[in-house]
């Protein structure tokens, strides 16, 4: 091949490769986003929340925890500061600190039935030294920042 056309060929090949790369990456990211939402945002998202991967953060509302007799199914309400609540059903074995009133992050998605189906349950976990969080000022965003070991996509295995 003459040098000139070879250069054009190289340019074209690079352009095609870069274009394909950008398209694949953008598509890959778009399909695999994990949203960090509180109950208010889940309600606001409406049908968009069904099927999307969501990390829902909030407090376990006192008096709403139900342990099913099979031993591994739990149901509880997750609430946020504005008072919005989402019913969560989870099948994972709860971590040591799990109890009513504590901050949790659950990963899963909303179902048509109107509850949040969770595949993974984490107690919010702080690695700074400070007094236990004031439960009256639980903020979903803060909770997300304080979960430790909740690994992306782990639950989907």
């Amino acid at each position, binding site marked *: 091949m003459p040098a000139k056309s070879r250069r054009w060929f190289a340019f074209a090949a690079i352009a095609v490769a870069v274009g394909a*790369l950008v398209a*694949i*990456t953008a598509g*890959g*990211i778009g*399909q*695999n*986003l*994990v*949203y*960090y939402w509180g109950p208010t945002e889940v309600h606001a998202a409406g049908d968009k929340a069904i099927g999307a*991967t969501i*990390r829902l953060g909030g407090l376990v509302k006192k008096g709403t925890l139900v342990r099913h007799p099979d*031993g*591994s199914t739990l149901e509880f309400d997750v609430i946020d500061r504005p008072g919005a609540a989402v019913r969560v059903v989870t099948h*994972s*074995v*709860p*971590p*040591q*600190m*799990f109890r009513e009133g504590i901050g949790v992050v659950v990963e899963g998605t909303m179902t048509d039935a109107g509850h949040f189906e969770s595949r993974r349950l984490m*107690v919010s*976990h*702080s*690695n*700074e*030294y400070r007094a*236990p969080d004031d439960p009256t000022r639980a903020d979903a*965003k803060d909770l*997300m*920042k*304080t*979960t*430790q*070991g909740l*690994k*992306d*996509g*782990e639950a*989907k*295995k």
Partner: protein
Amino acid sequence: MTSGLGRALILVALLAASAGSVVAFATGRRYSIEGARWSRWLAYAFGIAITLANVLMVYALVTHDFSVSYVAQVGSLASPTWVSVVSLWSSLEGSILFWGLILGAYIMVATRMTQQRHPELLPDALGVWLASAAFFAFLLAGPAQPFLTIPNPPSDGPGPNPLLQNHVLMMIHPPFLYLGYVGMTIPFGLACAALMRGRLGQDFVGALRTWLLLPWIFLTCAIVLGGWWAYEVLGWGGYWAWDPVENASFLPWLTATAALHSAILTERKGILKGWTTTLILATFLLTILGTFMTRSGVFNSVHSFTQSAIGPTILVFLAAALVFSVVLLAFRVDTLSADGTLGDPVGREGVFLLNNLLFVLFTFTVLVGTVFPLLVEAWSGRQMSVGRPYFDAMAVPIGAALLFLMGVGPALPWGAANGEQLKRALLPPLAGAAVLAAIGYALGVRSPWTLVTLAFGGYAAQVTLGEMWLPLRQRMRGKGEAFGQAFVEGQLRRGRRRFAAYVVHAGAAVVIIAIAVSSTMGISREAQMRVGDTTRVGDYTLTFVRADDVMEPHRRSMVATVGVSRDGKDLGTLRPAMNQYAREREPIGTPAVRTSLKEDLYLSVMNIDPEGGTLGLLAMVNPMVGCLWLATGVMALGGLMALVPSRRRADVIVPAAPPAVRSGRSDLAAEPTR
């Protein structure tokens, strides 16, 4: 007193580094013997001052001197001495101090060696190294001061983050990571110097490769040690999750690995000079990006410390380094003209190019997935992350393709090859591919990508072992040497770099196979149990025997005793635990792992109540994880072998160097060739 002395040392380090950097750059513009000498002395002054500051801090930590702010922050009378020592890098200020120590040590050694071999490049390189040193000394003098005086020292401190004192790997992983991360400053400086001087000769590429290889070995170990630590401590049963901080360590590794390969073409054929330097520059920039991501609190993990003012400062440094690199490349890359041509791309050269393309592609996809959520949050305030499937979807095919090239590349001859040669080189290893894939299939592997990986791995293994064996056979046949003699003479003394590269490849092939198998063939089970209950995971039967409460000085341990048996055969007990540290709200699990090369049995406590006799257990069978740790050791060993300079190289390279650079080595050049 201690604090005052510490602050003084840091001030000395800061002054020495900034003055040294200015003097070195000035010397690079207009050479003078005085300037060169002064810049070297200032480099040593920085190294010594920062080393003394670290010694002082360790002394304060071990003697529990709570009048030093950093000790008051991380020290505790209850900590064992080894915990006190490793507290040096367990929190923000100390970790920057430790960074300074490593950088000081690297700069001192690199200054000495560059002065001996490439004195003409030293001033510019030293200017870059000391500029970086000055920045970290500035952090220690300003936004991240470890030596503040506490007027009314507390009688005791909280101790370091319990996650960091829960396992002995925490002693090893951070130093390796720093040795890898910080070490990338040295090749960065050398590459900048080459650009500024407009010269990247064959001999100098060799030096650049060596200085890149050393931190690469540390970084390779550090990444895997980090995964091992997560596996042994965090209790979720995996070792890699595409977490931003993991990616932060992986990104510079990718570009450094690419650079190590392209440097071979640069050294051999005098081509791709600008490309190799670009990769080295990018590697350094990615280490600073990683430092920003882990030190600024934008991501929360065990690696990120207090939200602090340090983040924006690092971002400014990153921006400055980026602009410097881009401008340097834009204006000077033309000066690094090629000494040769690529030749026919259908041959080993072409595989090197493809390898580089894939590594860059890999870097790009991981970088985008890591940084994207940050950009979205900065732009719109919405929080999200990019899920693991994105990374897996990208990494699996690229990793498999790299493994494929690892087999094809060494099988191909350098330069043009005709059809007959290609056939002879490429067909026989298909046997290895078929055998390994068949073994996998017989053992139950059904995932297509894992089978593909096994086939590529078998191919690469046969080629790699063949390439290791070939020179041995030639020596044994041709010269009639015994195996041992042929091995020492042919592989360890003469062809060491080549042999070492194949050792690294062999390790890497096993690593990729182990990752594929462990991530697709694992079994996991969660069970809520009472004392006496049994559950099964894979071939193992697990019995919850009892739960104990063990009080230790610094923590309360709730230990589950789990009896393990397989096919009716008793395998003893495993004791996963949940530890409650003083001053910590949440308990931290310690998984118990029964490791063998074939598979690990992994038990982790999710919840435990010794009084009530209940246990929430996560049990997993993870195949080939042990091979992963072992094979990384093989990679590191191969890297170390390649690092030892071979005699043959000195003979070949020194006479090839232009006369101007010989000044420091004239003795060697005058030596008669063997």
